């Protein structure tokens, strides 16, 4: 036992002397861990072990730590080295020394210089004394000392870097090598440090000198060339010379921060514009189709909402950047002091109004003229500095956008002579209007004006309260939309209804709606909701309801104008369509007015579905019912009428002509919308004319429906009642020529559609793929980890495993420690025993010699 450690230490010694490759190649040192099976592509660290090496490592480590502790056991005094970084193994010895040095310096400095106010340590910048820099001028410096310093530095650098002989270099190298192997003494290090810094200083000086030299040379050259230039443009030269270097710098800097002229887009040709327009329309159309199919709306749709189809570009952009771009005008910077003056009515002309309106709006023409003039002027101005025209136009358009809404009454007033007559009429209209706070305000504002003026007022209100002008304007205009709708409703309920005013107001309503889609949607929804709610209530009480009044019909029409009717689901048009269908099913027809209302609703219904071709059963039901009203003989029908119509009853003969003579004199005329509210037809011929007009409207709608629903699989069944009605009942009656033709056309259209269909089948699904036999390759990134459970479980597993491993490792370590300690203790005991034995032996030896000597002496004595 006692010999084993000795042996090992010997082995360790041997091992130490050997290089690592030698050890690895020695088959006696290597232990190969046998694998159960080979896994392709897996690299294992532990296939080869070096037990000897690792054991000796472990033993050494224990000797350093455990053994020391053991030795220190039961001792109370301990030596602690408090020098900086003494126990920090991570620090390089050089760093340690450096740190210690600086700390010492600091300590000394603090103590020494507490009361030393003036003589502080020299401050440096890039290794140069600041004091020196303050004292001397650059120029002087370069003039006087450059040569000397340069020489000096050159010498020094030479001696340090390559300038010296091989000896020097060798020495340096040797030094370095030595430094690498053994720690330098402090003194050496400091010296080196000082040397280094000096060296750097010198280097820098040399560089500066060189640069100075070069610039001087350049100056010299420049002066030579300058003299040449002087002859050509002496003035420019003088000017060039004048500004001092600082000024120039200032200017450069200034220019750097200055606004820059941005490149503008090039002017577009009319063809390009048209093409763009078409593309935009195509995109919008595609969008509409997508919505019609009920697909999800992508977020991107939002962006184009602010543009109308013909893109007015008249200030509907809500957030635009206010930063002005640099532009030149008349050779000066256009800093935006001279702003384009735009009249608020400008956009109307761009809107492409009918020519009559333009005539009526003399002012608009005028403004246009003005603008053109202005533009001409500017073009002249800009003609001088050529090449800037695009910049200018850019700036102009910018200004246009910004300044659009700001009213400028002065200009128009100045040109009053042009059309004095019309101007006089307009003169009383102010150019700015406060946005109405309540509905009554709006009414007061519009009261007593002609419909054109009312429209103008609304337009100006809208312009003068453009959201970009003030914070609260957005809300005001949103309210204005609600009030306008209310106003339209009121106009429609007046008797007689002022529909032409409504007609005039439509563009304004549309424009407002484009600005605030959400508010418009809310306003329209509340109107529809209220109407539907009241209808629902009457239905609950009475079981039937009266036809919606004219204002509601107008609202429905306006809805169709403002919102797309073809969407699969739309927050406004879907309820509106439901409302129409509700009215068509629940409102019994009791008079010709009712019938007219019903036909208006039918027309609206057709309009709503005309693009999407959606099936509106109530529409067909109502048309069948209407045709049924015209049938004289109600004995054998052959078809079924759907409520609210009845096969027979009090009001089932509403459309039967009183005399067949009226057929001859009848000609198709448009029905007035007011006929839905009141209809004063005194005599029978008038009534017959109205009846025939209704009938013709109805037939036309039927025809449209025929075309719309032609592709429905059950087209024939849907139109079967109409076909029976037209071919069996109405054809026998006397009707005017056009109606006869219309009805025969319809019958033809119905009978020409194919009756046969193929049977229904489910949509074809993708066939379920066969099971494949090739192995499923799953990329596994975490080998050896358990899979197939939840993340938490896996984490728990992992931790458990780790704990187990660590526990085992710790146990092993402890065991090894105790074994090591036991071995050491045993060693100690053995050593002690051996010592004792040796001493006893020695003693015994000496005693024996003593005894021997004594005996021999005794023998001698004998």
């Amino acid at each position: 036992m006692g010999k084993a450690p000795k042996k090992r230490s010997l082995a360790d010694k041997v091992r130490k002397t050997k290089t690592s490759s030698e050890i690895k190649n020695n088959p006696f040192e290597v232990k190969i861990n046998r694998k159960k099976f080979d896994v392709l592509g897996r690299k294992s660290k532990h296939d080869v072990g070096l037990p000897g090496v690792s054991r000796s490592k472990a033993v050494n480590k224990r000797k350093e730590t455990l053994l020391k502790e053991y030795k220190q056991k039961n001792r109370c005094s301990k030596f602690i080295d408090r020098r900086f970084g003494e126990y920090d193994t991570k620090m390089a010895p050089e760093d340690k020394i450096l740190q210690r040095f600086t700390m010492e310096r600091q300590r000394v400095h603090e103590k020494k210089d507490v009361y030393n106010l003036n003589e502080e340590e020299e401050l440096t910048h890039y290794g140069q004394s600041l004091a020196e820099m303050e004292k001397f001028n650059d120029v002087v410096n370069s003039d006087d000392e450059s040569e000397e310093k340069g020489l000096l530095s050159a010498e020094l650098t030479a001696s340090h870097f390559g300038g010296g002989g091989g000896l020097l270099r060798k020495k340096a190298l040797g030094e370095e090598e030595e430094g690498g192997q053994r720690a330098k003494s402090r003194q050496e290090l400091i010296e080196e440090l000082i040397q280094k810094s000096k060296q750097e200083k010198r280097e820098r000086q040399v560089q500066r000198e060189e640069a100075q030299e070069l610039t001087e040379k350049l100056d010299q050259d420049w002066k030579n060339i300058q003299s040449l230039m002087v002859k050509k443009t002496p003035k420019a030269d003088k000017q060039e010379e004048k500004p001092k270097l600082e000024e120039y710098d200032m200017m450069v800097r200034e220019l750097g921060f200055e606004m820059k002229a941005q490149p503008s887009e090039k002017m577009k040709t009319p063809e390009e514009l048209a093409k763009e327009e078409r593309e935009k329309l195509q995109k919008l159309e595609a969008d509409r189709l997508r919505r019609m199919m009920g697909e999800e709306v992508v977020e991107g749709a939002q962006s184009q909402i602010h543009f109308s189809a013909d893109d007015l570009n008249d200030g509907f952009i809500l957030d635009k950047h206010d930063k002005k771009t640099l532009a030149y005008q008349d050779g000066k910077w256009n800093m935006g002091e001279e702003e384009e003056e735009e009249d608020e009515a400008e956009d109307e002309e761009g809107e492409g109004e009918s020519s009559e309106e333009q005539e009526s709006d003399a002012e608009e023409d005028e403004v246009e003229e003005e603008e053109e003039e202005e533009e001409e002027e500017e073009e002249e101005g800009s003609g001088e500095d050529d090449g800037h025209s695009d910049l200018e136009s850019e700036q102009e358009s910018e200004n246009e956008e910004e300044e659009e809404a700001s009213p400028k009454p002065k200009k128009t007033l100045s040109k009053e002579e042009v059309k004095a007559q019309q101007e006089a009429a307009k003169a009383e209209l102010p150019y700015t209007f406060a946005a109405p706070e309540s509905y009554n305000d709006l009414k007061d504002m519009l009261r007593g004006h002609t419909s054109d003026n009312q429209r103008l007022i609304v337009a100006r209100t809208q312009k003068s309260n453009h959201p970009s002008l003030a914070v609260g304007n957005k809300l005001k205009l949103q309210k204005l939309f609600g009030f306008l709708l209310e106003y339209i409703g009121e106009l429609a309920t007046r008797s007689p209804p002022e529909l032409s005013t409504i007609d005039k107001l439509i563009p304004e309503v549309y424009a407002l709606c484009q600005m605030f889609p959400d508010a418009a949607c809310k306003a329209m929804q509340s109107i529809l909701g209220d109407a539907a709610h009241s209808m629902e209530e009457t239905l609950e009480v009475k079981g039937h309801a009266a036809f919606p009044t004219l204002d509601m019909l107008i609202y429905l029409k306006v809805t169709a104008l403002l919102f797309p009717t073809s969407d699969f689901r739309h927050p406004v048009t879907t309820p509106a369509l439901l409302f129409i269908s509700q009215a068509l099913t629940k409102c019994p027809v009791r008079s010709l007015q009712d019938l007219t209302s019903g036909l208006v609703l039918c027309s609206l219904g057709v309009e709503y579905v005309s693009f999407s071709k959606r099936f509106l059963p109530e529409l067909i039901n109502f048309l069948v019912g209407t045709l049924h009203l015209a049938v004289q003989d109600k004995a054998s029908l052959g078809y079924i009428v759907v409520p609210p119509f009845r096969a027979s009853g009090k009001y089932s003969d509403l459309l039967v002509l009183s005399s067949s003579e009226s057929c001859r004199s009848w000609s198709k005329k448009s029905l007035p919308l007011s006929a839905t509210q009141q209809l004063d037809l005194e005599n029978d011929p008038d009534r017959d004319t109205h009846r025939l007009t209704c009938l013709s409207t109805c037939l036309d709608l039927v025809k449209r429906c025929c075309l719309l629903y032609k592709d429905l699989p059950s087209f024939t069944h849907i139109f079967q009642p109409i076909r029976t009605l037209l071919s069996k009942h109405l054809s026998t009656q006397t009707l005017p020529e056009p109606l006869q033709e219309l009805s025969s056309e319809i019958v033809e259209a119905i009978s020409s559609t194919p009756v046969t269909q193929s049977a229904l089948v489910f949509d074809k699904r993708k066939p379920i793929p066969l099971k494949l036999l090739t192995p499923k390759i799953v990329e596994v990134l975490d080998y050896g980890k358990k899979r197939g459970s939840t993340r938490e479980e896996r984490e728990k597993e992992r931790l458990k495993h780790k704990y187990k491993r660590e526990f085992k490792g710790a146990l092993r370590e402890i065991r090894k420690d105790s074994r090591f300690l036991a071995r050491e203790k045993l060693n100690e005991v053995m050593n002690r025993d051996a010592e004792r034995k040796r001493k006893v032996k020695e003693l015994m030896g000496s005693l024996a010699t003593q005894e021997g000597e004594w005996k021999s002496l005794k023998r001698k004595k004998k």
Partner: protein
Amino acid sequence: MAPAKKRNVSSVKTAEKSAKKAKVDLSKTVERILESRKHANDVFDILESLQAEQEKEVIGAVAACSELFCALLERKELFLGKLPGEEDALSGGYSAEDKYRIFMRHRYTSCVEILLEHLSHEQYDIKESAMCCLMKFAAGEGRHPLEDLDWSEHYSFPRELIQALVDNLLSKATDNSLLISRFQEFLEMEDVRYYVMSSIRDNVGKVMDKSKGAVVPVYQNNVFTLMSSISMPNQESELTNFMVKQEAKHEDWKAAKLHEHKRVFERMWLGFLKYKLPNSMYKKVLVILHDSILPYMSKPTLMIDFLTAAYEIGGAISLLALNGLFVLIHQHNLDYPDFYKKLYNLLEPSVFHVKYRARFFHLANVFLSSSHLPVYLVAAFAKRLARLALTAPPTALLVVLPFIYNLIRRHPSCRVLIHKPSAEDEPFEDPYLTDEEDPAQCRALESSLWEIKSLQKHYHPDVAKAALLINTPLSEQEDDISETLEVTTYELMEKDLKQPEIKSVPLEFETATRLLKGRGDVLGQHFCLA
């Protein structure tokens, strides 16, 4: 009699004064009469003012009467037994006491008569107070019977009074529904209810026999209102609230037995329904039949005649009769031949538009839930409903489409209606016969539900989505239609109107310049602004 004349004069006085005065006077008079018999003649004053013009005065008089006669009944100062004539009383050998009682009894009878007349007064207040007063009398009489108990089989219940009250309540000329609803509170009492029911039966018999079977709408309406306000007890133990307590033989009293109640109830209804009714009355009766009439009848099967008759009428009445028939078929083993054929023929476009749509589909769902129905029948129903769906409003469509899908789910062999791969490529005409009445002959199984395919283009997104389901195999789970049964159009609208957050509202991109102009404008082609 002199004071009466004096009172007469005073009653001509101005309205308010007299009314006020009369009230004070009347209460004083009542006190006086009750105080001593010498003021007995003042009762005429009260009766006088009972017939006055003024509403307030009459009401005051009614109150006075009720106070007076109730007190008299309490004191037993009204003559008992068979009442001799007034003249007889004076001449006959009665004691003064008896004479007074006879006199008072006569006044009581005349008072009751006046009050009964008042039941058909124009003023509701008078009617109401008269009725309440009469009921008080009835209660008083019940406690202190005016008849001899020996020969009365009716256990001291003022049967005549109730009969007279009911007779007057069921007026032939005026609609008494308000009064009847007031009367309902008295019907809470078991014995009152019992006797009212039998009175109604007698009354109906009398009146209808007189009219010889012709309909008397107002009268029948009154009768119906009264009958429908009767709420029957469910258990014998609930019979506790009596107006008149019978001291003896309470157990034997008919009014205290539930089965007697049921018997009378049944006879009352049968007696009423025996005669021809106006159409609206049929509907009303049928609406309440299944849950407030049938359960309380002792033999519900007796209703079968009425229900079959109603079922034959057609239209909405037939729809309603279904409910009663269902109860009979389901709970009382009624065998109804050709039930499904008739049900099939009930399906016409108006089914979707009538008020009772929800009830009808609920029942139809129950009837067609049986898995033992033949396939041809189910297919016929599905096809018929699909055909009708072409004319239905969206609310109905949202019921009908899941309904049809449920039928197909329950009977997988009906799947050919939406999936017929064998005949995929050869187009053919729809073989379904719309006008065929017999579901067995209508060839629905050979057809396909193209109607639903058409509805995929329906304007309402929900309907279109529902119709799209036939493009793929239906899920196993049945749709629950009970939630959508009662949905109204407005509720459907609210789904769109009350959307919490709309991301962005799509707008019409075509600029609107005029009201009646623009792409796809149809209105402007037929109508002009004017």
